[in-house]
């Protein structure tokens, strides 16, 4: 699905390269997480994928095609919900479709389908300020989903939520993923979150980095919270924390 080939990148004002000959790939339909110290370049990987930055060297491919040649291959969901306060929930969700000139009728149909799916149908005509933090993230996710991309880029989407809401949202996200069959790249600094959600965890350890260590989580889907108590999982968690602190 996604492939980074020898990508080198450096921000103009930085002294050092952030990534150098970086190779990385994700298979279609997988749920993967990227973890690493704050500031190591996780968000930058997403900025490269969605074209907000361009690599100085190497290329990024989607299904074998360079990203410059294709459109709507990825949809980005930021940490803050970034819902537009002047729009209703419905208009917020429809925004990406509106920009892609999807017919009004179809926008509405899809919007109501997804609102029903996430259990927030009665909020269609409310404004973002009338919703709780968790609800706003669900709406933001719905908007990302309806951007019409195969691959979702979620950048620490739950890190601003309180612990209990976050746990709920993680379980909810897994359900959504199983239901919608998207490829999900998930950035987090929470090791437990990464393990609970993803099939593979990628760790950024070096600076500049040329690769990420890929670790498979030995759990089947659907997953339950109790799975996190298994000894091999507890050990994996300790191991990951150790790697991050090196």
């Amino acid at each position, binding site marked *: 699905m996604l492939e980074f080939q020898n990508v080198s990148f450096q921000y103009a004002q930085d002294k050092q390269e952030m990534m150098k000959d970086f190779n990385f790939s994700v298979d279609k339909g997988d749920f993967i997480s990227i973890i690493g110290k704050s500031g190591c370049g996780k968000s930058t990987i997403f900025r490269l994928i*969605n*074209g*907000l930055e361009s690599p100085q060297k190497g290329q990024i491919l989607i299904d074998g095609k360079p990203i410059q040649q294709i*459109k*709507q291959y*990825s*949809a*980005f969901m*930021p940490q*803050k919900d*970034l819902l*537009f*306060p*002047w729009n209703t929930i419905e208009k917020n969700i429809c*925004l*990406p479709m509106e*920009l*892609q000139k999807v017919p009004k009728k179809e926008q509405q149909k899809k919007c109501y389908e997804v609102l029903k799916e996430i259990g927030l149908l009665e909020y269609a005509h409310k*404004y*973002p*300020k009338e919703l709780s933090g968790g609800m706003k993230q669900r709406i933001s996710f719905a908007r990302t989903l309806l*951007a019409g991309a195969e691959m979702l880029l979620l950048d620490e989407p739950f890190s601003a939520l309180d612990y209990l809401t976050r746990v709920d949202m993680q379980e909810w996200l897994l359900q959504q993923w199983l239901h919608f069959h998207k490829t999900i790249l998930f950035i987090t600094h929470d090791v437990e979150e990464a393990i609970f959600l993803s099939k593979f965890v990628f760790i950024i350890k070096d600076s500049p980095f040329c690769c990420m260590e890929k670790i498979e989580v030995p759990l089947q889907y659907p997953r339950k919270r109790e799975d996190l108590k298994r000894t091999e999982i507890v050990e994996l968690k300790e191991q990951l924390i150790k790697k991050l602190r090196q």
Partner: protein
Amino acid sequence: MKKNMPALALGIFLVLLWQFIAMGIDAAYILPSPLQILVKLWQLKEILLLVHLPATMGVTFLGLLISVVLGVFLSVIMDSNKNIENALYPIIIASQTIPTTAIAPLFVLWFGYSIWSKVLVTILITFFPIAITVYDGLKSTKREMEELLITYGANKKDIFIKLKFPTALPYFFSAIKMAIPMSIIGAAIAEWLGAQSGLGYFSKRMMTQLDGAGVFAPVVLLSFVAMISVAIINMIEKKLITWRKEI
């Protein structure tokens, strides 16, 4: 309403204080009392409301309209192009230090007693705050939101309509509310300097006749009109903008 009580009480107290001091001095050509001004306003109501108020409002409205169009236009092109911004912004800031009232007589020289000399003064006074405030509004657009729109495939026009316009709208209303009293002051000052009608002109004529209450009456009328206009804009703003606090 409850919140405004102290202000109302203080206002009434100040007017009363003024009344007593004026009665103490007892020289209406130096300090007319509020009561005397009201009486004067009533005596002159026809000529003030039918001749001079429309003249001043014409200048104010025309000046404000041109300022808004020009100010919004300049702020939009400054926001959309870095070179234009670099060229215009310092000039706009620097031009705010020009003492408009001091050069206003020059406009009378150029345009005579026609409406345009007065409109020009009004524009010079209100144009800069409008341009700068609306420009600040456009610049206050959140970069993350702009980038999110770009990832959805938005072009410059989409970004303006979907993001910049609503972000700048509250600033636009602030600018208008600030500009209304300023444009009225501008029109009145311009009329002082040279005119054949208008409340500023009338006030000046009363001055030459040492009629204190007559000087104040048009001023009171102008303040009243300014307050009503700002209140109307406030109402429109409340209806239109429900999100101000969240930005």
